[in-house]
């Protein structure tokens, strides 16, 4: 913060120009597309014009209830995230505290992390039925390994000198955990939770799309099956908007967890 106020005008100048340039480029591409499609260089039955897409926003919101669909997907993601945070972090802590369990299972968890677990969705479908629960559980299970691994990494990479500081002040083992190890590991743990949330979101929307059930994933699927092109593109824009919001929110939280950095 100090650097920003010190840098003054020049700092703002250096920051703002590239950002404005980026936005201008995005705008130029959109305008270029509009022109190319209008004049038939791109088939408008494959790519609708940007104006058509914007025009169908209202329809998507009113007729297709994009708001409540968003809330459904958001709710599923929230449910999966809650499960991820509770179970992922607890497992990570367990692995950190009990060395034997860590030695026995860490490589397994790392291996599972690289398997496309979402392909098990038919199984979840049979167990939990065609419901939001299936989608939440699928998102949770497929995103669990990275949360466990990052929690473990954060806890075990705490700098030894910080632990020594705690010992020199005669902290009890539980104080050492809550006052030093955990806060020191928190930024890394959050990186894991964020990674888990991205995985969960990918799988949640993916399963919605595949089993044609639920929120935004189903909306894209339905509109495309109806050959409603501008609508499909508009719905996709909406999903992108969601991921933009997701990114900004998680970035803020991360900044807040690494104060002053």
């Amino acid at each position: 913060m100090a650097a920003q106020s010190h840098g003054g005008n020049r700092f703002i100048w250096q920051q703002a120009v590239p950002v404005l340039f980026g936005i201008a480029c995005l705008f130029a591409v959109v305008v270029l597309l509009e022109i190319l499609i209008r004049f038939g260089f791109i088939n408008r039955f494959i790519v609708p014009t940007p104006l058509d897409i914007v025009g169908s926003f209202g329809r998507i919101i009113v007729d297709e209830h994009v708001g409540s669909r968003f809330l459904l997907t958001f709710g599923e993601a929230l449910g999966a995230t809650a499960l991820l945070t509770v179970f992922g972090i607890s497992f990570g802590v367990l692995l950190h505290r009990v060395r034997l369990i860590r030695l026995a299972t860490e490589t397994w968890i790392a291996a599972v992390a690289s398997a496309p677990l979402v392909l098990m969705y038919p199984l979840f479908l049979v167990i939990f039925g065609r419901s939001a629960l299936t989608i939440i559980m699928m998102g949770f299970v497929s995103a669990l390994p990275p949360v466990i691994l990052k929690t473990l990494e954060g806890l075990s990479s705490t700098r030894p000198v910080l632990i020594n500081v705690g010992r020199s002040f005669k902290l009890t083992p539980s104080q050492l955990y809550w006052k030093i190890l955990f806060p020191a590991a928190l930024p890394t743990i959050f990186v894991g939770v964020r990674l888990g949330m991205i995985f969960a979101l990918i799988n949640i929307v993916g399963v919605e799309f595949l089993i044609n059930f639920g929120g935004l994933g189903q909306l894209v699927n339905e509109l495309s099956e109806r050959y409603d092109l501008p609508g499909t593109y508009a719905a996709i824009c909406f999903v992108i908007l969601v991921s933009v919001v997701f990114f900004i929110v998680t970035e803020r939280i991360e900044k807040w967890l690494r104060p002053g950095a």
Partner: protein
Amino acid sequence: MGGTMPSNPSVGSDSAGAATQPLLVVDDIYKQFETAEGPVVAVDHVSFDVAPGEFLSVIGPSGCGKSTLFNIMGGLLDGYDGHIKVAGETLRGPHASVGMIFQEESTFPWRTVVDNVAFPLEIAGMAKAERLDRARHFVELVGLDGFERRYPSELSGGMRQRVSMARTLASEPKILLMDEPFAALDEQTRLLLGDKVLQIQQDLKQTTLLITHNLTEAVQLSDRILVMTYRPGRMKRMVEIKLPRPRSSEIVGSDAFGHYVAQIWNDLREEASKGLKDDEARRGGTRR
């Protein structure tokens, strides 16, 4: 161990002169580590006392076991022979009367300056308003007033080390242990921080034990300096620094200062070159 005389006769020195009970007694400490190349003796029968209000430095080349000694005195390391007494109590694990300042950067990055300093008070269960008040006092003492609400990542290395110092001082230790606290800083900052330490030490009459490999720093700050040998770490000489107090970094230019530095360097040079040769031999050995 009634007196303050070092028990080892090969150490030419005298006591700090006080008849008072020593605050810290280091009695015949011996510590060896098991390594892949067999056992290595880190500290070899080291004994000395520190009187209340005294500033004692332990100086020696890298590998003389001074950091091991630091960890033993702080109660962080056990499995040694001999014993340590703090205010008459035999040391078993970290002691409330011993405050430690570490060589590595050790502020908590998730706490503001004042919250860092309030940490030991928080652990002691002091009420929030009271501990913040006390913490502010120590922040001021190390000259960081105005930075209370900053995070360590916004501060320079020297400022961060002062935060660590304030944090340890806030626990009001009877004896302060410092392990090369300024090793990572540049020479000017080091001298100026030395002034700060001198001033604090004189204000608080803080009994202090400093581990260092820096000659200027040791002479600038100490009442007595213990020179250690290179591996195994033995006591080579105890030197009394009879420079006037209160001191400041200006003393670095004086003749008496230069005299002490030359005298200690004479002892140290031999040990440092042994260390250097040993180090080169070890590296050469792995290359071949």
